[in-house]
């Protein structure tokens, strides 16, 4: 088996008395799509923020491409990217200008070709010259995805990437992700509240509850283990348990 491109060991994050992530360990292998599931407040976003170097872990370690994130931040972040519903892009720039800035930031050679390719791939031609402030939420999501794809990352962190997309575009995005994974060996950490999407996309799933991993395996493994009909029922079980314990 090939060595993991990402290895998180005993990852913990505390904010004062509150423990957001508690001893989480997992790996992602080349070309693998790992689903990160859990109710709101389970620690998914904090985990991704630690993996992106935006939040410093209280304990534990993160290695990507056999490099330690705490000491090789620049080399690692050059090879990863992310897209999320909770980020934005400079609103006064056009879609194309934003992509040019990102291309420069990551030192992409042949910027014009790359930007054109990604605009085409994500069907953004009609609004490539539009000021970002005027984009619909679906177009905005496509822009943040374009930003993530533009840099040809080896690992992509996607936090609810299809949340505000219509079913047609969401389906195209999922197909694009699978195609990128197949053609370039892209590894993806994926979060979504759409359980059908998680089943379709993820090779493996990690369930988080109150900052801890409570289940891990393929979607079918997890459904079978908890004796539920589908992943949504498993999700509801964990969400309600978490809700009861916090109320």
């Amino acid at each position: 088996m090939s060595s993991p491109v990402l290895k998180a060991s005993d990852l913990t994050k505390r904010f004062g008395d509150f423990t957001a992530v508690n001893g989480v360990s997992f790996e992602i292998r080349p070309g693998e799509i790992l689903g990160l599931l859990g109710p709101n407040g389970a620690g998914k976003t904090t985990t991704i923020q630690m993996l992106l170097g935006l939040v410093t872990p209280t304990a534990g370690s993160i290695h990507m491409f056999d490099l330690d994130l705490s000491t090789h931040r620049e080399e690692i972040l050059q090879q990863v990217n992310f897209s999320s519903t909770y980020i934005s892009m400079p609103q006064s720039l056009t879609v194309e200008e934003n992509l040019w800035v990102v291309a420069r930031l990551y030192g992409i050679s042949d910027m014009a070709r790359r930007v054109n390719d990604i605009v085409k791939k994500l069907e953004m031609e009609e609004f490539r010259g539009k000021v970002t402030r005027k984009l619909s939420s679906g177009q905005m999501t496509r822009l943040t995805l374009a930003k993530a794809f533009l840099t040809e990352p080896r690992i992509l962190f996607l936090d609810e990437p299809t949340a505000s997309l219509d079913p047609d575009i969401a389906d195209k995005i999922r197909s694009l992700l699978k195609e990128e994974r197949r053609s370039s060996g892209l590894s993806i950490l994926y979060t979504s509240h759409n359980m059908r999407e998680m089943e379709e996309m993820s090779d493996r799933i990690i369930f988080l509850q109150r900052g801890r991993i409570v289940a891990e395996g393929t979607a079918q493994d997890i459904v079978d283990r908890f004796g539920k009909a589908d992943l949504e029922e498993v999700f509801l079980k964990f969400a309600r348990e978490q809700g009861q314990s916090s109320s």
Partner: protein
Amino acid sequence: MKLHRITALIVRHLYLYRRSLPRIMEIFYWPFLDLVIWGFITLYLARYQSQVPGFVTFFLGALILWDMLFRAQQGITISFLEELWARNLMNLFASPLKPSEFLAATMAMSVMKVTIVSIVMSVCALLFYSYNILIVGAWLMPFVLNLVITGWIIGVFTTSLIMRFGQEAEVLAWSMVFLFQPISCVFYPMEVLPTWLQMIAMANPAAHVFEGMRTALGAGAPPIEDLAWAVGLNGALLVGVVAWFYRTVAYCKDQGLLVRVGE
């Protein structure tokens, strides 16, 4: 440091200014108003020129130099605020961009703003009041360089505070520099300050620049000592404030503040 990452941020801000008339106006509006108001006050006071020699020269020169410091500070702080307002900090800090590259880009923006404002103000002063800033002589360039660095120091310090305390502290971007104005001795010599305040002003590089300017314009003596103080203090304070910025970034990452944009 990688040049392409610095130029990426500069290009991002140039795109922004290219399309935003209010932002361009903001660069010129206050310096221009300052020049008009203080210019007329100076003309009025110039009637008493015999009692206060070189008044016009001191006043307008000081005003233009002070605006250079102010714009240098704004170049740093407003560039950071633009990222905060655009909720773009996550994109930047999750990229390979280093804090040093971020600072270098904001400093480059600051130099561009200072250059443009200086040219406009100097031309306006020449046209409206027949005042030529070049009468400061060969000392003008070292004075300007030192004031720009002092502006950077105040800008990086203010940026660190906004990063630490969030958007509710953004008012500091415009107000912080004025905390330094009384002890910069822009329009009056240091000797008019109370002794205890003189001690504080001595630690401010800008105060030595303005003292030096008065020395050069008044007695015509070379303001070597003033410049030496300004250079030494600027060097030490710049190193200190950049270290403070790095410390603030680390603190914000520890507390998760970089991802919590807003008030």
